[in-house]
């Protein structure tokens, strides 16, 4: 009897684990770190219960987690890992290598701040460090999107035009530990959408090949250029996969960007991840009061959709970027990229960038309204909101 699609209330981590299970990974390797743990605990239980036929490697570090899935992927297996924060930073060396080797691993980052000072709570300073690794980088707003994104991620990664690893950022605790109703697809549906992995090149005695060579200056640049081209190809493939997903599953849950009431908006808030949900609610409230406010969600951070962002924002009078990260000594990472995208374009809206929600601090309605008020008064660049002056030492 065919299974039926059902709506169930699941913790975000469980929703992701279910999505990963439905994608039939061959090898999982992970090292525990809060708040990623529930994802890999769920997957481990699925393997233990025989619901998922995969090798589960309990490695001794995140560096080895990434390395083990790298080796598995190079051997022709579909491979998955998850981490966050410090563990993600420990993986970074391997992540560059994985992308350079063009291995389509999928990695979940349960976004969390970075030490020091130590925090286990959410922001997105961790995964943004991977900006230049060559990874495709997607960010989920809610648990349904996280679930859908994982199913799409394998398809994007394994598309020959891309052949890159994919990272999915989802806010630690805010999403990973929240219960939400999600539509859980059936195995048949996912199988019809995501065929089994058929690599063109892999380690086998049937056709020995050398992977991960040393290069001299006459070859290195071309290899890196092709990596860049693959990123550009990913832009097209992400959109195609989103359309395909809609055909198969009936809901549109993909693409590079998502807008909310942005078409005629004078003011557009821009953000990444779960914060977009708050901005949406506040924008709705403001519009009811007669202010034309919209929201732009950046779903795909790499490849960065420069053209599409300019297109979405250029009719606005004021753009307000709210982000849970800062490139210390420069500005917020997202604001930086959006400013760069606008260079040479016209018209250019006014733009203010605010740093909020670091280390799990709540981004409240008041925070957002404060940002709106400040941005209307003057332009802001990497302004930290909600600072407690009592904790600050002036030097």
């Amino acid at each position, binding site marked *: 009897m065919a299974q039926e699609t059902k709506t169930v209330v699941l913790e975000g981590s469980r929703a992701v684990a279910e999505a990963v299970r439905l994608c039939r990974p061959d090898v999982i*390797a992970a090292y525990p770190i809060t708040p990623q743990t529930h994802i890999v605990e769920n997957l481990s239980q699925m393997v233990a219960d025989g619901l998922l036929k995969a090798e589960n490697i309990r490695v001794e570090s995140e560096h080895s987690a990434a390395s083990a899935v790298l*080796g598995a992927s190079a051997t022709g297996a579909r491979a998955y890992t998850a981490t966050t924060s410090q563990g993600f930073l420990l993986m970074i060396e391997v992540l560059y290598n994985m992308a350079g080797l063009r291995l389509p691993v999928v990695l979940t980052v349960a976004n969390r701040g970075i030490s020091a000072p130590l925090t286990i709570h959410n922001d997105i300073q961790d995964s943004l460090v991977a900006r230049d690794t060559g990874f495709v980088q997607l960010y989920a707003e809610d648990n349904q999107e996280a679930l859908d994104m994982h199913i799409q991620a394998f398809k994007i990664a394994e598309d020959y035009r891309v052949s890159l690893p994919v990272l999915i950022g989802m806010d630690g605790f805010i999403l990973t530990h929240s219960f939400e109703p999600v539509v859980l697809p059936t195995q048949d549906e996912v199988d019809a959408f995501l065929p089994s992995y058929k690599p063109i090149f892999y380690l086998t*005695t049937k056709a020995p*090949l050398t992977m991960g060579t040393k290069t*001299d200056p006459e070859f290195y640049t071309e290899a890196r250029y092709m990596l860049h081209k693959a990123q550009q190809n990913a832009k097209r493939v992400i959109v195609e996969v989103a359309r395909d997903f809609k055909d198969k599953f009936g809901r549109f849950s993909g693409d590079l960007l998502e807008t909310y009431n942005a078409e005629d908006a004078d003011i557009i808030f821009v953000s990444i991840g779960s914060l977009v949900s708050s901005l949406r609610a506040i924008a709705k409230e403001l519009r009811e009061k007669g202010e034309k406010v919209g929201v732009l969600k950046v779903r795909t951070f790499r490849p960065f959709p420069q053209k599409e962002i300019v297109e979405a924002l250029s009719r606005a009078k004021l753009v307000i970027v709210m982000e849970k990260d800062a490139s210390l000594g420069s500005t917020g990472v997202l604001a930086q990229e959006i400013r760069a995208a606008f260079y040479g374009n016209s018209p250019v809206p006014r733009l203010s960038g605010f740093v909020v929600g670091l280390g799990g601090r709540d981004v409240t309605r008041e925070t957002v309204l404060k940002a709106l008020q400040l941005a209307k008064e003057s332009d802001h660049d990497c302004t930290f909101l909600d600072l407690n002056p009592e904790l600050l030492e002036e030097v």
Partner: protein
Amino acid sequence: MFQIGISQPYNNNLFAPGHTACAGCGQSLAARLVLNALGPNVIVATATGCLEVFSSNFPQSSWEVPWIHSLFENASAVASGIEAALKVLGREDEAIVIAQGGDGGFADIGFGALSGAVERGHNILFIVYDNEAYMNTGVQRSGLTPFDASTTTSPAGKCSYGNPTDKKPLAQIVAAHGAPYAAVTSVGYYRDLEKKVQKAASIKGPKFLQIHVPCPLGWGHDTSLTIKVARLAVQTGLYPLFEMENGEITSVVKIVPKPRPVEEYLKLQRRFRHLFRPGAEGELKKIQDIANENIRKFKLYEG
């Protein structure tokens, strides 16, 4: 477009000539002996280092077998993933999985990954080519650099006789994990090397082989003396060759006809030259004591 294809192995060597190793390189010779002893049904993960650099310069490769290089410290973890993938894909019988590299890649920076992979019981053959320092980067001290060897980061000087510590007992540490097989061999004893490679390959689970491979450039000996130096290391008692099965020593290569004084080994190498200056006699004695202790402990010679 680059053509990807399989060339016919040259002279049936699975490790093809034409690579860029130095004249007299003990590691390249050992790598060839290892592969030829195993045959073509292997998948190899190699750590960053001399072996990787001189054998895989794009678009050339010496490897006639499936081979991957990822990073310096992760060959054991990459091999773990390869082994797991073969298992789950039903390709377990396709190949012996090998994780290999130098002393730095396994005893130092890759030690955690080696320990993890051995402890998890992966069916992997770990091979450490021990040339006793970071040769690829210019002869810096590693955890397997012997006592009093002068390296570029443990140089002999007015206040120093070189490396202040003795070698980390890597094979014993691996054996202590519960590995069914851990052995030490030398490129100077190639029958012993082949025998141990084949024995290791026949055992299921994690197995470890450490191979002493002289480096003429780093050790400062004539390129024609690689085998002689390797043999003297064993014959002095400074580099005991042994097998450990399930934690117990089950065989040693005996010294015949009798142990050579350590000076015979040391004097051939520039890295020990400072020990032959006046006043260093005490250091020579310390090294002789290390050899004597090895001979006693491993029962290398019963005169």
